[in-house]
């Protein structure tokens, strides 16, 4: 049974209760709770306690049969405890402080009850009631604190996990960054070219090992291998032999950065005192980077240049050797020709004598021979004449090869007409239709080309001798883009299998019984045409006529 006047005492002594509680707190060493600033807190706590205590009085009877769920204060004491714990926490005080305050407040209330000098039974009951009330308040505080702590722990754990994850992520990012940077440096260091990376203002941001090594070897006097200084400024201020190249480099880099060009390529000389050196500079703008930068590589092309120069001098030497050999060959060819000519000439003189004496023998002593012996002498004479003709033809052939060319425009049609007239005059009984294309004009030696036309027409004339109606054509056509003159006939023709032999000296495709001839005419044609830088060839078929073509250098 709670004394009914307890309610009155508590309501009246709020200030005293708060002050005492504060004093107890001070005695317990809880100085931080006893400052002037926290007096209000104590007062509010005591006010709240008193209100809850009074509510508890009225709820005392109802509470007997009721149960409360865990963490859900079912009575004003527990509810207040929980509330107080939450407030403490909201104020940022440690969880235990609410419990301390409640302990000091409990002391304050118990002392107040004792000071009322209540009758023994009533005091006992009041003290018990207060004790129980505070037990429940503290339970509320503790339960709430535990709950809060759990929740905070969970939140903290989750926050920690998040933080750890973030830290891990950060660490990984940082590692990747370090790895990437290492890779970048390793990559540019692995390249043999001297590489520098410029920012959008032309300032050197990074260089590779080759660049540093080159700087070391060539007495670079700047700081930190130029990193941080403007490459453009260095180029702009260059003097001496390198100035022009340096300006070109600066201009090229500016063009790259301004998007006026896609790539820069320069070759330049940079000779050291004891070595000739060539370099090439290549630069590309990484315009997709923000801000853009330029990757620049200087690479030695000395070996390539040296090889090129060696090649040039080798070729020159080779050409010189070829020229020398050609001269030697030409000389020995001329000597050979000269020798052949001399031999042929001598042979010819002897043959002329043989022919002369043979003729003399027949003319002066012919009547003394009988039939067979006369035939022998006649044969000897004929053979010597044939032989002399062969030698004459060879000498002619040699002459066409050796003589100087007089090149001027030649009307082959006129020559062909003249030859045709001659042939008609010599054999007026033959029926030969000679068709000559008008004004076939070429450039060459008039005498030699006349010889070509004469040989070809005589050839055609000869090989159509067995035709009752012979047809001979002289004209010009275009074959494989070349202007080719031709002489065509409907004569005996030839087997194409032997076409290659036609133009060789003394190669005949017909026996002398069929057609006369030494087999030197076409060889002469070939020689003359070749001397004019042209080519002669023939097409034909047995009994189907033949066409002889020749080209001349235009």
């Amino acid at each position, binding site marked *: 049974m709670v004394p009914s006047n307890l309610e009155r005492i508590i309501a009246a002594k709020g200030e005293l209760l708060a002050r005492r509680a504060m004093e107890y707190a001070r005695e317990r060493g809880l100085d931080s709770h006893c400052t002037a600033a926290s007096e209000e807190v104590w007062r509010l706590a005591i006010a709240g306690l008193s209100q809850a205590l009074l509510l508890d009085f009225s709820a005392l009877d109802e509470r007997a049969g009721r149960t409360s769920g865990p963490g859900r204060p079912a009575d004003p004491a527990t509810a207040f405890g929980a509330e107080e714990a939450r407030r403490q926490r909201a104020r940022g005080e440690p969880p235990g402080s609410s419990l301390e305050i409640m302990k000091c407040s409990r002391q304050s209330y118990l002392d107040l009850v004792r000071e009322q000098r209540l009758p023994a039974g009533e005091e006992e009951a009041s003290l018990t009631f207060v004790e129980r009330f505070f037990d429940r308040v503290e339970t509320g505080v503790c339960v709430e604190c535990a709950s809060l702590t759990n929740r905070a722990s969970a939140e903290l754990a989750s926050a920690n996990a998040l933080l750890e994850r973030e830290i891990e992520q950060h660490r990984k990012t940082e590692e990747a960054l370090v790895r990437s940077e290492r890779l970048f440096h390793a990559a540019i260091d692995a390249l043999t070219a001297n590489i520098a990376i410029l920012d959008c203002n032309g300032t050197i941001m990074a260089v590779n090992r080759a660049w540093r090594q080159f700087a070391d070897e060539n007495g670079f006097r700047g700081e930190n291998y130029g990193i941080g200084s403007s490459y453009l400024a260095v180029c702009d201020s260059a003097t001496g032999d390198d100035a022009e190249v340096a300006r070109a480099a600066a201009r090229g880099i500016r063009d790259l950065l301004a998007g006026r060009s896609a790539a820069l390529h320069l070759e330049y000389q940079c000779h050291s005192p004891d070595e000739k050196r060539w370099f090439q500079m290549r630069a590309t703008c990484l315009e997709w980077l923000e801000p853009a930068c330029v990757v620049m590589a200087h690479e030695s092309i000395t070996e390539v240049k040296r090889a090129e120069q060696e090649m040039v001098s080798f070729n020159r030497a080779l050409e010189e050797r070829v020229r020398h050999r050609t001269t030697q060959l030409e000389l020995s060819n001329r000597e050979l020709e000269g020798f052949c000519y001399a031999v042929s*000439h001598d042979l*010819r*003189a002897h043959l*002329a*004598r043989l*022919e*002369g*004496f043979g*003729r*003399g023998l027949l*003319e*002066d002593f012919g009547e003394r021979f009988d039939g067979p012996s006369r035939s022998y002498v006649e044969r000897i004479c004929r053979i010597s004449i044939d032989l002399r003709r062969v030698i*004459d033809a060879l*000498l*002619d052939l040699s*002459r066409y090869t050796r*003589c100087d060319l007089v090149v001027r425009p030649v009307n082959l049609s006129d020559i062909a007409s003249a030859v045709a007239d001659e042939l008609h005059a010599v054999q007026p009984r033959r029926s030969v239709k000679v068709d000559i294309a008008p004004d076939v004009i070429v450039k060459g030696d008039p005498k030699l080309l006349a010889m070509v036309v004469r040989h070809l027409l005589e050839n055609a004339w000869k090989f159509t001798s067995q035709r009752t109606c012979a047809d001979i054509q002289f004209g010009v056509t275009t074959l494989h883009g070349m202007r080719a003159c031709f002489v065509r006939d409907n004569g005996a023709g030839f087997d194409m299998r032997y076409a290659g032999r036609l133009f060789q000296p003394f190669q005949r495709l017909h026996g002398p019984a069929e057609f006369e001839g030494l087999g030197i005419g076409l060889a002469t044609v070939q020689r003359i045409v070749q001397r004019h830088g042209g080519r002669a060839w023939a097409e034909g078929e047995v009994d189907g006529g033949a066409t002889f073509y020749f080209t001349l250098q235009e």
Partner: protein
Amino acid sequence: MVGGPILLVEDSPDDEFLAVRALRRQGMGQVVVARDGEEALARLFGTGVEGGSALSPWFILLDLKLPKLNGIDVLQALRDEDHTRLIPVIIMSSSREEADVCRCRALGVLDYLAKPVDGREIVEVLTKAGLMKEAPLTG
């Protein structure tokens, strides 16, 4: 001058024989032979070892390939002297080299005959040049 001695300049005895025979067959028997260019000029200018007077031939049959002075040199020397300048010359040579032919024609020869020389050819040339009235008998 029509008729008279003929100067044959020829180093080869065989060719000399054939030329003399060819001339004789055309009735031209008076032949003086010189074996080389120097001898030919000596005869023409009268400066020979024999010390005789200068030969004034009807015409000269001149080979080109000769010892010492060659045919062209002889021809040139003849043309350079007033009293020999107009002597008719017929070249007979084994060489049909165009350069030689042109050079000789430029120095005013009657003709250029290839060996072996036929007497009839010589007559033809002389007749054409008005140095013979008519062709003599041939055989």
